[in-house]
Each structure stands twice: as C-alpha cells, then as structure tokens.
C-alpha cells in the first residue's frame, strides 16, 4: 500500500448526503459520530462542505427531486470520492421499490462503493462497512 493510498484510507472525511430518507439512518449516522464510537480514531471526520469530502454517506430513497441533487452532489465532490449507501433504502429502495415517486436505485445514478444494509443499520455495522471499504480500496489499483 503506497503512501497516498494509506493517507486516503486513514483520513476519510465523510459528507452526510441525505437523499430523502426517513431520518432513522441519519440518526444512526449521527450516533456513529458521537464520542461513544469515536471514529476520529480512524481519522473519520464529518465535513461541512462537499468539496472537502472523501466519502458520501447517502441515506434514503432517491426520488424524482433528490435523484438529480445527489448526482450533482457527487459531481461536486473532488475525486477520488467514495459513495457509501447507508440503510436498506439506499441499498435497494427497500419497500419503496414500486413507489410512484421513486425512479431508480441509488447505484443507477452514482457508482456505489459499499452497501450497508439494515433499517436502520447500527453504528457498529457502519464501522464494519467502512473497514470493508478501506480493505477494498487498499487492495485495488484503481484509485
């Protein structure tokens, strides 16, 4: 693992991109960032601006309105940028699959690097997911 890759995986600044969620996943994401789980140990910080972000934590089902927004948001983030789909909705639209206002899955709009399922996923599950992401990025040559 070279230095650039190590630096990238050891300091992931996340941007919380709410894509019309029901708020449960967002509450769990906030729980993840509290002192109890202390993800700053691994260099993970919540970034205020998407220009600073290395990973987008996307929650919720894309609907006609937010689908365009999430695409724009991904284009605004400086690359390399990972996309983490948090919760069953972002992974595969859950029970809103047949819904009238939901055009497509999240991964049909932007490339998703890791899926964390659960409704909502526990903070432990998110940490496990991020560890998997780091392993995946560390072993790949693409980034």
């Amino acid at each position, binding site marked *: 693992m070279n230095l650039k890759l190590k*630096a990238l995986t050891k300091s992931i600044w996340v941007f919380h991109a709410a894509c019309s969620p029901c708020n449960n996943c967002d509450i769990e994401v906030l729980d993840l960032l509290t002192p109890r789980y202390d993800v*700053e*140990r691994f260099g993970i910080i919540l970034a205020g*601006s998407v220009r*600073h972000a290395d990973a987008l934590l996307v929650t919720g089902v894309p609907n006609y309105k937010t689908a365009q927004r999430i695409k724009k948001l991904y284009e605004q983030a*400086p690359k390399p940028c990972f996309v983490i789909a948090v919760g069953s909705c972002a992974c595969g639209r859950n029970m809103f699959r047949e819904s009238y206002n939901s055009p497509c899955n999240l991964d049909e709009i932007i490339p998703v690097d890791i899926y964390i399922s659960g409704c909502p996923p526990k903070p432990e599950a998110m940490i496990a997911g991020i560890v998997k992401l780091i392993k995946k990025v560390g072993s790949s040559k693409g980034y």
Partner: protein
Amino acid sequence: MKLVFNYLIFPGFLFSAVVGLISGWFDRKLTARIQWRRGPVWYQNFLDLIKLFSKEIIIPTEAKFTFFISPFVGVCASVIVATMLGRVLVNPSESFIGDLIVLVYLLVIPAIAFILGASSSGNPLASVGASREMKLILGYELPFILSILTIIIKTGSIKLEAILNHQIVYGSHIASFSGIVAFLVAFLCAQAKLGFVPFDISEAEQEIMAGTLIEYSGPLLALFKLTKAILLYIMPIFLIVLFIGKDTSLKFLFLKYIGLITLIILLKNTNPRLKIEQAIKFFWGPVSFLAAVSVILALLGW
C-alpha cells in the same frame, strides 16, 4: 544560503509546519480526552495533508484569479512570521528596528487571505463567512494593538530584541499589573486570530457549513489547513516573546508553549460559539476597556 535555509527549513516553513501540525494533533487529542474518547494518532494531521494534496482541485466557474493565489499568500505570510520569531529566539541580535510592527502587520495577512479567497469563490455562504471574518478582524485588532502598545510603553522600544532583553533584566511582563491585563487581552485576541471556538464564527460548520473554506478542495484546502497549523505555532510563540520571555531556553520555551496551547484548547472546549454581534460587542466593550486600562497602568509605571 543561510537565509534560504532559515526561510525554508529551520525556523521557517518545514519546522513551523511540522510543529504546527503536531500542535494540531495535540489539540485534537486533548479535545478527544476531554470528551472521554481516544482521539487520533499523532501523525493524523500529516495524513490529512498528504490526502488533500493527492486530491483533485475543483475551481468554480465563477471564481476569480485570487481564488487560486490567496492560499499561497496565507502560507507565505505565516511562514515569514515564523521565520522572524524563530530567528529572534535563536539569536536575538538578528532583530531589526520595527520588527514588532512588521509582525503585527503580517499576522493580519492570513485572515485577509481567507477573506480574499472566500469572496472570490462566488459562493454565497463563503461570502457570509468572509464578511464575518472581516467584522471579527475589526473587532479584535483594536484591543490586540492596544495590548502590544502596553508592551511598547513598558519597554520603550519596537524591537523584539529590546523586549526580550527588558524581560531578562526586569522580569517577565506578565508579572506586572499592566502586563497581566495586557496578556489576558492578547490571549483572547489570539484565540480569535486562530479562529478557535468562541470566535470560529467565520467557519461555523453547523450553520454556514465551512464558511470561508467552503469552495476549496484538494491542495488549495491543504494550504489553508497548513496556514492554520502554522498560526497555531506562531501565536503562542508571539505571546511568549511579548509577555513571558524571561527565560527562552529550549526547555522553558517548550513548557511555556505547551502551557499556553493547553489554555487555548481548554478555552476552545469549554465555550459555545458566539454570534458575530456578540463577538464584536465583547471585543469593543470589555476587552478594549481592559486593554485601555493596561495602557494607562503601563503609563503610570505599574
């Protein structure tokens, strides 16, 4: 040759950046311990910088030319301050007449670089941040310069060497009445200059996202982070030279630096963010009053 070495390596760029980044880690670690967590590893800030340097730069279509140069302006100004302070501490005879005035000027430039970069980025939230930063500068510059005036009155010189020598002969300025009042004022102003919590109004993450830094990405953001890191190194050193410069041997310098930085971090962690009008009221009201008191005390010879 020696000058290049001074500016680029020893008291200048490389040294101040490394010390600043490690102090930044100290800040994060202490904050983490206060919040009862473990905190990041000691090289976390270096990793952040390497990561930012390896990322893409995005320049908004509405951005002006100053968007690109202002991070360099900030870093250069803070490196010059670090070099001047370091050279005076290593060898006081390197000081020249009026270098205190030059330092006071140069210490404003990083903040101006933030304003310049933010206002040329074309983002409305960045311009909110820039206007807040501007108001904050107007607020803290008056008491800051008054507290430095106290030191000038006490020593009768605008040369750093004379200030250090005066303290070696007559004891630290902080040990006198006017000195301690002026120190308190300068300490609060340093907190505002560093952009730490009671006065981090221009970058308030929860309300205007990242404020002045909102459009910056990749290496340009890294340069701004570096400017902040170097400022975290030079502000306490500046306060030490002005107020507690009796013994500037390496051991005492280190202890004083750690002590001051701990005070700054504790103030940061135990205070909520002020609103901009509260901050200006605070600086133009009680703090300016204290600064004026310290000037009067210094004139009376206390």
